[in-house]
């Protein structure tokens, strides 16, 4: 009996040892890092960056791209509790960044930021998005300004110009509708929040900020009015069917909708479809709904690239992040994707996006944090579902706002 128990314990110990690793953090020198990300479609561009970094700093990088962001986040969160740590990983700013920084494993990048700002490689404006408790964490993997991409041929065909005011935008949509063209793209899945944030930011950006921090309610009159305005636009027939699963890049290329609102990263979709900026498509800043606002509100997002203090080679991770911010790296990263860069020294060929980046850096716009980053995950989840329901059944807007508020009440009751 004793022997059999010893045998059982022995096997159990071996299995557990195999599952748990050695339990100690053994630092090792790495010549190639793995970059985990939820941007599976960008693998080609990450690969190009890996080849360049190998050549320039002797440190290669291989991407592991997820396409399901929920699955990706669960994997990264799990890594905080195990010895399997990613060398580098992409994440989100806002509450999501605060959440992981609290675990005291995300590498502090304050020194990298200070050096990069001094060298002109990063802008001071970005600091708040990466600051938790007075220190900086991660570096910008990308930045994006949100506006309207439009099919230039359709605009030219109907004698339309980029609108200067909200009324101009609605008049443009009306002209297109009369010509049998759907003006706007929207969807019931994932990006269902886009028009909500745009209308909120262009109507009352302060209310939008208060909503993000639980200081206002989704059932407040200002939010209800925004939903009613959104409903009017849908009822007027300006949008394509929200259940249309055509890729938005194809929607714009084929003219299924004349305008698609997304971040500047949508330029990559145009590039991969061989569309030429200024000839096939172009970009304009969406005017405020409320003309009395002092600055045009512009949705802004920045995705962090992070490393962990307990990764296999934390020094190599920090070295890579430092290189990532340089104009040499950012020039390649921005040019290959046709997108803007977090590095102010980097200029891109696309004239419209170049102007927007320059103007945004010069303080022309009121930058508003994208809804995806600004909203806590449980509220965001309820909101994405709610807006998905709303675009399909616009008459349900009050029911939708109440359901989001219910999730918000629950979240803020334990997170103030």
């Amino acid at each position: 009996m004793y022997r059999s128990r010893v045998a059982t314990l022995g096997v159990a110990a071996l299995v557990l040892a195999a599952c748990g690793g050695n339990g100690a953090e053994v630092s090792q020198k790495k010549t190639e890092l793995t970059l985990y990300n939820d941007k599976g479609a960008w693998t080609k561009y990450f690969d190009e960056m890996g080849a360049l970094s190998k050549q320039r700093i002797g440190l290669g990088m291989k991407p592991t791209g997820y396409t399901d962001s929920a699955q990706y986040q669960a994997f990264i969160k799990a890594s905080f509790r195990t010895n399997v740590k990613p060398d580098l990983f992409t994440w989100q700013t806002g509450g999501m960044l605060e959440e992981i920084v609290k675990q005291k494993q995300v590498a502090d990048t304050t020194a990298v930021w200070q050096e990069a700002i001094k060298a002109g490689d990063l802008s001071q404006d970005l600091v708040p998005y990466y600051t938790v408790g007075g220190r900086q964490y991660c570096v910008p993997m990308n930045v994006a300004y949100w506006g309207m991409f439009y099919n230039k041929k359709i605009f030219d065909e109907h004698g339309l110009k980029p609108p200067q005011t909200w009324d101009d935008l609605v008049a443009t949509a009306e002209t297109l509708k009369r010509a049998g063209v759907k003006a706007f793209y929207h969807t019931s899945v994932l990006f269902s929040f886009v028009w909500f944030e745009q209308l909120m930011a262009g109507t009352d950006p302060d209310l939008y900020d208060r909503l993000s921090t639980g200081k206002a309610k989704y059932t407040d009159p200002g939010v209800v009015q925004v939903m009613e305005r959104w409903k009017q636009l849908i009822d007027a027939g300006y949008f394509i069917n929200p259940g249309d699963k055509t890729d938005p890049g194809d929607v714009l290329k084929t003219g299924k909708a004349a305008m698609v609102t997304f971040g500047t990263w949508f330029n990559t979709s145009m590039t991969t479809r061989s569309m030429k900026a200024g000839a096939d498509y172009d970009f304009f800043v969406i005017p405020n709904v409320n003309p009395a606002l002092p600055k045009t509100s512009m949705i802004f997002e920045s995705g962090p690239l992070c490393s962990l203090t307990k990764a296999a080679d934390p020094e190599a991770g920090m070295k890579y992040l430092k290189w990532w911010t340089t104009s040499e790296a950012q020039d390649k990263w921005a040019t290959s994707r046709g997108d803007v860069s977090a590095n102010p020294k980097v200029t891109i060929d696309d004239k419209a996006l170049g102007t927007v980046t320059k103007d945004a850096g010069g303080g022309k716009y009121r930058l508003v944090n994208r809804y995806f980053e600004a909203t806590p995950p449980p509220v965001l989840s309820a909101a994405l579902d709610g807006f998905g329901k709303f675009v399909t059944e616009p008459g349900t807007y009050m029911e939708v706002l109440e359901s989001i508020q219910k999730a918000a009440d629950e979240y803020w009751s334990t997170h103030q």
Partner: protein
Amino acid sequence: MSRPPILGRFGHGYVAPAAVLVAVLLYAPFVWTAYLSLTRYDGLESPVWVGLANFVKLFDDDALLTSTRNTLIWVAGTMALPVGLGLLVAVLSYDLKGGAWYRVPFMLPYALSGAGLAMVWSPVLSHDGIANLLLGVDTAFLQEAPANTLAMLAVWTWQQLGVNTLLFVVGLQSIPREPIEAARLDGASGWRLFRHVTWPLMRPLTAVVVGLALVSSLKTFDIVWVLTQGGPGRNSETLAVTMYKETFVASDYGYGSAVAVLLTVVTGLASYLYLRRQVTAT
């Protein structure tokens, strides 16, 4: 009866590797999930004990009511369509000359995985999709409830019909010929022969087919996740999709675990009650 001495001495050691694997991979996650269902947990901070609060919330959650309704539609629909039609195709084609060739087309879609199946049907059922083009209509197959669940059930039937047909054919082949011949000599044929002789003899296999279909319909996930992600507005969610969304999308691991426990209890109870009835009947 005494055990052979060799097993008595080393038996536990032989069983240990498998027992440890089962304990680590099956029992431990189950116990951990059950524990998490009694906590508030975001996947990062340590779980905070909240007692039965997550289970109380289950009864006040409209989304859960919708996903329970949809799951019941999946269960009822699976019994009526892939299983019911599978039986019909098996019985009608069984005695036909070259019947196997009639069954082959039903078998082919079974080669697809659940996610692959949904990917194939997505462009068919979406707005401006192939179905609307072919039918010359403008129907939102995947938008309105419960029509979207029924549309996905039709896709599920397209895939599952073949394997159920095959299983029923195996059941028909395993029936001894004597009772059938005797019934025929007594003048039984057609529906009466099936109802009173063939069907009762197929009962053991039917119990397996229905039992498997019951469990697979209760845990429907992949096809819904790929085609609609449970939307729009959660109106096509099943319990399994709700479990996933609450846990991994909303990062509410405690509540997601409570849904998982509920789903486990419902599946276990339904399987137990059904199989007990079948075993008693046979």
